[in-house]
């Protein structure tokens, strides 16, 4: 076995951390390995993971999307309100995904055509969408979500959806032309543009995909709690970005993988669950998550200095 090659696998620290913590929990904490608890972990990991998949695409291009949580809330409320008004549930799913994609596309247009910085554009989008959703729903949750939607949001089904999406995007990134272009845009946009690729179209597509993932995640989140509401996924953007970074995606773009980011989402959810089972108050999650982000960032630094990338 070639160990030196193994050392350069970016996902390795995340995978190691996940395996060690899962093994530890399985042996040390009997309440972790119950079917009910594992089912909950899978459900939460699936819901967070859908957001993480989309965000990781954006971060691989060197951008950032702060509006994923707000997009999820908007799409959840939009789909739930239409279904409550009598639209069939089979339309609800594409509606949420298309609405999310549309939001992402607007982000992409503002970033590529108006040349606004991604952080600023998506911050404005975050404020705008939260406000619109709160005003449109009068902050009242929708509780009549059709049974079939609730069924696909229950138990391990979100996790299955998340695995399928991760697999699909991973294949796209490694086997398809567009995947290579996404990574290349993150590494050096100008050189990709000069080699004849429409980088702006690539960026718009990436933000569109991120929004669509958020739309689907929002629909399932609302259905999982049987309450589609305007403050759904409030503050999730930070969890999502943390997961992507923990998964070994470089924040300045150009390096990282969907699988790494998916592992990051699992780590965050498993850590949360562990703290919960150990009886720590929910507010203290922050200390642990903060520490994990730092460890991940230092791992990235170590990797970078090994690769001898010069930084001032």
């Amino acid at each position, binding site marked *: 076995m070639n160990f030196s090659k193994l050392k350069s696998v970016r996902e390795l620290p995340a995978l190691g951390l996940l395996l060690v913590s899962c093994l530890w929990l399985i042996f040390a904490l009997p309440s972790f390995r119950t079917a009910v608890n594992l089912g909950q972990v899978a459900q939460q990991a699936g819901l967070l993971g859908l957001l993480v998949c989309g965000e990781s695409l954006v971060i691989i291009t060197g951008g950032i999307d702060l509006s994923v949580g707000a997009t999820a809330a908007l799409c959840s409320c939009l789909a739930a309100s239409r279904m409550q008004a009598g639209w069939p549930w089979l339309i609800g799913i594409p509606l949420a995904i298309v609405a999310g994609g549309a939001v992402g596309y607007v982000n992409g247009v503002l970033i590529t055509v108006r040349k606004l910085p991604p952080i600023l554009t998506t911050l404005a989008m975050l*404020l*705008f969408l*939260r*406000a619109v959703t709160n005003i449109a729903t009068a902050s009242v949750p929708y509780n009549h979500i059709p049974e079939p939607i609730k069924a696909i949001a229950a138990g391990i089904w979100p996790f299955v959806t998340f695995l399928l999406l991760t697999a699909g995007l991973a294949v796209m990134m490694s086997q398809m032309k567009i995947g290579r272009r996404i990574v290349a845009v993150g590494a050096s946009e100008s050189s990709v543009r000069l080699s004849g690729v429409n980088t702006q179209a690539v960026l718009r597509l990436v933000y569109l995909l991120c929004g669509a993932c958020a739309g689907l995640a929002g629909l399932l989140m609302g259905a999982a709690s049987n309450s589609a509401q305007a403050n759904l996924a409030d503050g999730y953007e930070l969890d999502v970005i943390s997961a992507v970074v923990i998964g070994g995606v470089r924040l300045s773009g150009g390096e990282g993988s969907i699988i790494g980011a998916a592992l990051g989402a699992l780590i965050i959810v498993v850590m949360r669950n562990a703290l919960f089972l150990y009886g720590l108050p929910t507010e203290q999650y922050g200390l642990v*998550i903060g520490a994990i*982000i730092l460890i991940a960032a230092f791992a990235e630094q170590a990797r970078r200095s090994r690769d001898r990338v010069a930084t001032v």
Partner: protein
Amino acid sequence: MSSSAAVGQSKRRAMPAETGVFVVLSVLCLAFAIRFPEARNGATVSVILTNLAEISIIAAGMTLVIATGGIDVSVGSIAGLCGIVLGKLTVEKHMGLLIALPLTLVIGSACGWVNGTLISRYKLPPIIATLAMFSAARAGAYVLSNGNSISGLPDSLTNFGYGSALGVPTVAWLAGAVLVTMGILLKYSKFGRSILSLGGNREASFLSGVPIGKVETRVYVFSGLCAAIAAVVMTARGATAVPDAGKYLELRAITAVVVGGTPVIGGRATMIGTMLGLVTIGVVQQGVVSFGKDVMWEMLVMAVVLLAAVEVDRWRLRRALAA
């Protein structure tokens, strides 16, 4: 720099960086004054200024951070932590304000120093380092307080929160003083020039002998210090220390700075723009209240104002380049 020099030679005068926010603010003020004639008085101004006190103090530090091309998303959490520390020290440890206040400021600065060290020495991206602090400081506030709010603060502190001098609330004086001090620091001191050169071109300023590590660390210390001062104001005004105080302060402060015309890529900054950006937020807040609308409308309008100010700024730059 080069564009303004070129414009100086032409007939057209260069428009200042604050043009965007000035135009947007004037339109908003005019609309507000026409729609609500009864609000055209000093009392309204005083309310707006008081409500802006915490955000203003945080935005002063944030302007320095953004001038280096960085960002500090942890200020709201640091303010929450410092508020709890102040409450703990004065109420539970029975310390006098003369000891408790400096200790609170030291805690805030220490959080900022950790941010700065992670960023300048260990080369973490600012958003990641401050994101970790965002989580950790908020958790720290909950751990220290067990999730409870602390009331029964000393009278001298709460009196400060409600006092006024020359018809202007004391907290507004304090906020103004912080803004002016940071503005002078940014524009006229060696430290300020180092900040701008660091934000403009890191490598060039390193090669020309600017101690970039030291400058960058110090910028985040200032940001943490400002968060601590804001925490004192917030605690004094609320008369209680609450662990989730200061949520979304970072969003508002970043919005004020960016609306004011300081570009997020760094290298240029205007404290006057930040002040105008702050007043814009204040006018929008007050307008939403006067219309009797939900606070959500404030976020909606701010999102539009944010994009509008950036568009006006782009128009200004294009005009300057054309000249």
